[in-house]
């Protein structure tokens, strides 16, 4: 009986995680995008959209549109795993996309809406459109890079360079096993001036394929609450009927599970 219950819990847990990553995450990504998009829209209209060099992580900074693969996303500031739940993230030690210099955007390939799922289908010459505080810039894709490919040629004076980064896999189960990274370089001949004062580096958790441990305390809190909820349902079960307990307990359980999973996902690599 104990073995059976354990196996059930393990199965539920694993499958819940998979469902969350692949489907529920997409829901929260879509909701975040919708909010970010309207926020950025009003900022662009009011000319209050950020131009760098320092922007609050999580704030929308640009609108990214890649017609070739149907991407239409609002880019947020920051590339920590948690920032990328909402959409593609702008690496904080590079200029904003569209500004003179090199800008880097990270996006998820598999989970949380997977905005950069089809990045590897881009080919040289495809267009990438960026709308940001200083205006619109159209980039032209230079090419795709995997591990071992040469870096692109240095950009010309005054050009804006954009590099999109996401996770990618190999072989038959490439979609499900994104162990490596893929880079898409794009260039626009004329960029907007970039403000000085860029941060020289980012925390390790914001680099490609990295995860942080900053979420651990929060995760502990959620788990404790979850345990508390389980105990509470057990206690309630002694007084109420099964139906009543289900009715009362279901919503908090779902919410807490969702939060706990989200927090736990911040411990996973940021690009998948």
């Amino acid at each position: 009986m104990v073995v059976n219950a354990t196996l059930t819990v393990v199965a539920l847990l694993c499958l819940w995680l998979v469902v969350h990553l692949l489907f529920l995450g997409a829901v929260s990504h879509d909701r975040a995008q919708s909010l970010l998009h309207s926020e950025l829209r009003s900022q662009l209209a009011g000319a209050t959209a950020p131009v760098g060099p320092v922007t609050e992580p999580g704030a929308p900074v640009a609108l990214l549109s890649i017609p070739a693969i149907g991407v239409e996303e609002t880019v947020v500031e920051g590339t920590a795993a948690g920032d990328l739940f909402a959409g593609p993230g702008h690496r904080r030690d590079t200029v904003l996309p569209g500004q003179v210099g090199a800008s880097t955007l990270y996006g998820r390939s598999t989970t949380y809406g997977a905005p950069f799922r089809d990045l590897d289908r881009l080919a040289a010459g495809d267009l990438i459109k960026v709308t940001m505080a200083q205006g619109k810039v159209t980039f032209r894709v230079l090419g795709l890079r995997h591990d071992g490919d040469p870096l692109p040629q240095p950009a010309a004076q005054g050009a804006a360079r954009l590099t999109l980064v996401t996770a990618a896999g190999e072989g038959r189960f490439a979609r499900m096993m994104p162990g490596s990274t893929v880079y898409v370089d794009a260039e626009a001949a004329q960029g907007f001036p970039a403000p000085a004062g860029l941060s020289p580096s980012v925390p390790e958790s914001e680099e490609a394929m990295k995860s942080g441990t900053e979420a651990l305390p929060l995760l502990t809190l959620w788990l404790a609450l979850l345990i508390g909820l389980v105990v509470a349902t057990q206690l309630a079960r002694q007084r109420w009927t099964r139906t009543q307990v289900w009715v009362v307990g279901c919503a908090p359980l779902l919410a807490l599970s969702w939060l706990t999973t989200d927090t736990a996902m911040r411990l996973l690599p940021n690009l998948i």
Partner: protein
Amino acid sequence: MNRRHSTIVTAVVAALMGLALLAPGSSAGSTATRTAVPAGGFEQTKSIDRTFVDDQGNVEKVGSYDLTVRADHTTDLRGRERVEVSWTGAPPSGGRASNPFGEKGLLQEYPVVVMQCRGTDDASLPLDQQVRPETCWTSTFSQRSQIAVSPYEALWTVDRYATDADRAPLSGADRLPADTCKEAQSDDTYTHVTPFVAASGKVFLACNRDTMPPEAAVDAAFPPSEIAAFTDGDGNGSVDFEVRSSAENESLGCTREVACSIVVVPIAGLSCATPTDPAVPAGVSAVLGKDCRQFGEHPSGSSNFAGDGIDRAVGPGLWWAASNWRNRVSIPIRFGLPPDACDILDKRAPVAFSGSELMAQAALQWAPAYCLNKKRFKFQLNQMPDQTGWNLMQTGGSPAAFVAAPHEQTGPDPVGYAPTAVTGFAIGYVIDRPDNAGVYTELRLNARLIAKLLTQSYPGSALGKGHPGLADNPLSLQLDPEFRALNPGLTDISSEAGATLLSLSNSSDIIQQLTDYIAQDKDATSFVAGKKDPWGMVVNPSYKKVDLPTGEWPLLDTYEPQTNDECRQANPAVYFNQLAAPVTTLRKIADALIDAWPNVQTRCVADLSAATKAWKLGRIDRQSYGARFMLGIVSLGDAERYGLQAASLKTSGGNFVAPTTASLSKAVGIARQKKGDPRGPFVLSQKDLVAAKSAYPGTQIVYTAARTHGLEKKQAATVASFIRIATSEGQRAGRANGELPAGYLPLRKSGPTARLWHAAQDTARSIEAQKAPASDEPKGEAAAPATPQAGAPGAAPAADPGAAAPAAVGEQQEVVTAQTEAASSTTALSMLPALLVIGMVAASASLVTRLMALRRRWSA
């Protein structure tokens, strides 16, 4: 008759001598002598005389002079600039006042009145563009009007050249309004007003203080500049006359467009009409006739400090009277563009170069040559401490910086130094010799004296004497035996202003170099270290062993005197800081020196009318003319522009070197550039400068410093073009737009400045090219774009190929770039399959166990 004979002989001799001097020119002196006039200067000779008409109508000539007036420059003047006006052949003055400016100079005999007037002396012009007494500026009404004078004293009415209107009881104005000019409205008196006509056309009647233009208010912002100057026994004299533009004096209103003149009115005495005027009572005309024919009470060369009465017929108060006014010499002057011309005339956004105030006077003349030329850019100097300007330039906040010394490079990009101007700083001073003997012009200072001033080692007054350790020090510079030995014959009255050197409060390459000058001197450093000087003076303990050299002079003293003075008790403050009171710009120091107004903040002002007694501390009064003693650090450009004296500084072998073209050239010859650094700064070591004996230690080379890599292409081209224009066209000495003002040593292709010139061209080229530094070239460009090795800890920001390897590489030229090192993660690789597999397995196992349990139940 005898006397008349002798005067005629004198006049003839004088005329002959004058002709001899002017030979080989024609008798039209002015054309002959024009050749000797410096460009932009002025010279004119005029015969003036004084005549009396006797009862029979015979004209007797009692004085005749050939007056020659010169001015050293008259074009492109700026507000507060001083023009040297000199003359020969004027009548010798007597009864000299201690302060000849404004109304203080009225009680003198035979002075030369020098004023600034609007208009030019050309009868062909419309009346409102001509010089008239009504357009001449005086800062008090008593200098231009005679109000309610008794008939016995109305000398102007017996002037030989006076018109009938001038002889009336009221002259100068048709009538006076009853409400404003009450003083002038008394019966049986004579009044002459010389109204002032402002540039706007408004007429100020000038019959009392309230009917004068606003700039003539008591204690106005600027002290009087009009002067009743002194002529020596040989008939020679000179003044440094300060001109005012419309920025300083709007009523006078002299600008580039509105022509003005410096009017020199030599007072040779009134020419008198026949003493029997039927219209005037006999008694009155007898007195007037006698008074008009006076020749002065004070012997020539004498002083009149007590303000004794004078013979008004030979005094300056009646400069406007017809017989004086007709003797005038008008020096036409023309102002340059106002400092804000570029802001008004050019709407483009300025390209602001940040940095040293040493460039201020050059930038003032250079800026219009850029902004008025649409092919060039709008050049602007943003004055700030050198280090601040340097930092701005490094971070891209400003395309280029003006610095006067090497600075440490902290940014990622290499910086090139282009020598742009050779100038420097001076210890400016205004010191009067005692007993009205004129201005002292030979101040000599050594490093120890400067150290004494900067370290606040003179107590200044009895208040400072209480400072521990300073009780036995001389009160101020005037009493220091070392100073007196170098500068004999100066006053021995101490003053607070004499205890300090007005200096800069912020960091500056000037302070760096000045303290370096102290640091190289053995006597000065041992004094700062605590050793007594040969006369027993010691350093202020607060400054003992202060760090030298330093770019920013600190205020270290904390002594607050304990006194019974109520004001000081109400306002406790550090006394020595009040003495030093450093300011933020050299221009403020120059202004303080022009006005002889020390920045010493020890004056107590009491507002006893307030319910609670209110005391405040403020700046002390302006120093009175004849007793001025003040020192301050100024730039050579300011010193030349405003006619400030610059001290000679001691170099080795007991030499004292003043800033001159020769001594600056010598200093530049010593400057050394580091080997193998063709775009680096030239180092002026104080040790070498002092050892060279005749080099001026205050010499500084001002560089245009800009990044030779990492600058935007357009900005780089702008900076390079600035350097090229500044080192070619900008080095022509002159006063016009785009030329190099006095106080700067022109950089030339040959001669002592040749190395600087070539370095500037070299730097301009490399700034324009914006090439990546040579040492980084083979590796840097290839390695720098190796950015997407983002997985590697501490790797450069991902994908930086654009920023790190810029335009130096041509588009066609392939660059070998590094390989992508993609980030990878086994967690990412295996997580999802693992989750799925484990989930499936657990689910099926749980299903199986469940099924097995069910079967067992059934079978049982």
